[in-house]
């Protein structure tokens, strides 16, 4: 009988999921009909990327109860990968001395590794002296190689380049899909950063991970903004190649114009929609792949172990599970998924804009998605991502227009200006209120964990 009840509960939950997804689908349909299919697809594609971020966060929070406040950093680090992989190398800058930058970075890393090795192998006062000497010596050597090289690179053609470029992998077997290689590389970059932070901050109080990730997030963004030799800093990196056709190329082919005429639309609209559909297909494949893998994982013995650790660390530890090690594992995997989403987003946008990476948009918004959707439930995270991203975009539009109509009768003046300006902060307020309400009254979210 109890089995029946379980089946029934599963059934009703499926029903609930279907209804909620249909409702969110309706929102997007409404957007397409009242706005345009083009803007709707734009929102939809970004929602897909957000859903992947939400899945990454859900692994950390939903499976393991880890609070990561530096998601924005991992997303941005993933976004660096398309630049490193597919932007052609800047031969002029490299030949002038730019090649010394990677050497300097290698020296820095080697110094840190040497310090760690020496630390493990020495004792007492010798240890302190040796480690300090290695670190100071390494730092001086690193700066001695690094500073002049950066100077050279940043003064080489600064208005167009001023950076060292990437590997320039673009064409594979004659197809322009080289940039896809950046996606796994983005995962690796984010995973590397997560491993270092996790190694340090996991196994201590849960707040420490939150604060350490807050710090690493800020630092990654600061590096992207200030290190012009890497990806031009706030001058932005444009012209990142993409694996789908360009709208302009499509519009110019007569074949395409024929197709557009057959559908009864003009070639321009038809091409933008077609390109967006290409991205959508690509992203959907990745999203479904990740969901499939995580569903497999969470229903495996490993998944049960993770949930056991989350629900009662002490008991799991008593059963012989290495809690810190598991936490590190899931923290790295979750961050890698966020890095993947970051790489996908930059590839789609074709630009890397470091100043756009704000914690509000890429850390806290994703958190709200996961918590509203239902922590611990993959489909819940996806649902939350679609719903919250839609609201985020729309509330950003509604706030100012609402305020405009409310203040329509007012005399123009500083007070009216202030009110209209302040409507832009409505997003923040709404997000905060939604987060608090869901956390309090429906902590399991829209689609609770089974």
């Amino acid at each position, binding site marked *: 009988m109890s089995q029946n009840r379980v089946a029934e509960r599963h059934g009703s939950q499926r029903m609930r999921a279907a209804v909620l997804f249909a409702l969110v689908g309706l929102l997007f349909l409404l957007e397409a009909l009242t706005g345009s299919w083009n803007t709707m697809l734009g929102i939809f594609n970004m929602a897909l990327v957000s859903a992947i971020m939400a899945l990454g966060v859900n692994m950390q929070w939903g499976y393991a109860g880890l609070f990561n406040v530096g998601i924005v950093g991992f997303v941005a680090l993933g976004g660096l990968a398309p630049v490193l992989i597919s932007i052609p190398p800047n031969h002029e800058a490299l030949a002038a001395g730019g090649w010394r930058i990677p050497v300097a970075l290698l020296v820095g890393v080697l110094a840190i590794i040497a310090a760690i090795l020496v630390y493990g192998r020495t004792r007492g006062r010798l240890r302190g002296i040796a480690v300090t000497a290695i670190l100071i010596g390494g730092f001086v050597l690193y700066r001695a190689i690094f500073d002049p090289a950066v100077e050279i690179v940043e003064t080489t053609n600064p208005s167009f380049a001023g950076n060292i470029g990437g590997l320039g992998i673009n064409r594979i077997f004659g197809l322009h899909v080289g940039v896809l290689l950046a996606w796994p590389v983005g995962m690796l970059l984010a995973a590397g950063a997560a491993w270092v932070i996790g190694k340090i901050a996991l196994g201590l109080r849960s*707040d420490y991970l939150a604060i350490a990730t807050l710090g690493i997030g800020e630092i990654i963004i600061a590096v992207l903004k200030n290190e012009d030799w890497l990806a031009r800093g706030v001058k932005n990196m444009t012209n990142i190649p993409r694996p789908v056709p360009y709208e302009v190329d499509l519009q110019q082919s007569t074949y395409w114009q024929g197709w557009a005429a057959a559908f009864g639309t003009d070639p321009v609209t038809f091409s933008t929609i077609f390109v967006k559909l290409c991205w959508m297909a690509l992203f959907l494949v990745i999203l479904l792949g990740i969901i499939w893998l995580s569903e497999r994982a969470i229903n495996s013995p490993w998944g049960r172990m993770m949930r056991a650790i989350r629900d009662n660390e002490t008991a799991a530890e008593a059963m012989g599970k290495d809690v810190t090690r598991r936490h590190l594992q899931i923290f790295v995997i979750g961050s890698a998924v966020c890095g993947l989403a970051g790489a996908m987003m930059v590839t789609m946008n074709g630009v890397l804009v470091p100043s756009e990476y704000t914690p509000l948009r890429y850390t806290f918004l994703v958190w709200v998605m996961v918590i509203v959707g239902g922590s611990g439930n993959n489909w819940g995270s996806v649902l939350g991502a679609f719903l919250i991203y839609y609201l985020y975009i729309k509330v950003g539009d509604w706030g100012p227009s609402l305020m405009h109509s409310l203040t329509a009768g007012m005399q123009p003046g500083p007070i009216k200006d202030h009110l209209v300006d*302040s409507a832009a902060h409505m997003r923040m307020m709404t997000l*905060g209120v939604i*987060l608090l309400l869901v956390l309090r009254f429906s902590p399991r979210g829209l689609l609770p964990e089974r």
Partner: protein
Amino acid sequence: MDVLNGLVLLMNFVVVPALSYGSQLALGALGVTLIYGILRFSNFAHGDTMAFGTGITILGTWGLQAWGVTLGILPTALLALPLGILVTMGIVLVTDRVVYRFYRRQRARPVILVIASVGVMFIMNALTRFIIGTDDRAFADGPRFLVNAPAFKAATGLDEGLSIKATAALTVVVAVIAVGLLFWFLNSTRTGKSMRAYSDNEDLALLSGINPERVVTITWIIATTLAVTAGVLYGLDKSFRPFNYYALLLPTFAAAIVGGLGNPLGAIAGGFLIAFSEVSFTYAFKKVVGYLTPGTWEPPGLVQLLSTDYKFAVSFTILIIVLLFRPTGIFRGKSA
């Protein structure tokens, strides 16, 4: 003479700025550490509480200035500070009733409280911007300098001038008074002792008849007072922009953790440690080295360890080092 010049240069660009910044951080970190000691979570809304209180204080200052009320040689903001503290206190206590108390009763995991504080952070953040916008606001008045560079040069005959901003001196004085009052309160009053008892051992404190809700309320009141004071001093000393207060969150947390979460004395030490490291790691020592070495030699580079863009990387690195080697902080705080 050269040595004196070098020392004055150091005083001017490292010691004085670090002292005032350190005092601001210490006040902020004290609030974080008290909340941690009593409520047992890291309050992410602390930075935005500072910003909100400062925003209200600025409005009060403008009002007073419009009426022609000033405080003579002191900034008018000091007169408006109690208003800022009271309004913020009201909001914070309402937040505690509406948000945090529920989780406290439930004995929820600390991380849930941290997430709730992120929600509160958003709301405070938006409120601040509703009230005062996102721009830079200058609200310091009164004399700008306690010691100004030309006068110092004329009086001492040195090449380097020492300037001490009035706000920097004021910061240190106010911080010393606030910390003095806090420690007197914690060590000598009945309520303060009950707070320490509650922080040390909650169950034992409850058994001996301490009212937990009262302790929590008083903690919020003290933490808010410290936070708004720190925020106003920071705004007077630098300038007020709401975003800067979010950026203060990392150094403030680092200061509290370095000193040992829950340990007030540690928070003060941590604040100064972070401030001095941040300022001295990002200062270009070129001229100082030039003065301190014999002859007219000056080093070719700037002798700057880190560019100022990375100043919070310093607090982060210190935080990491502490987490690696002494997770309970320098002055043994709550368990790791």
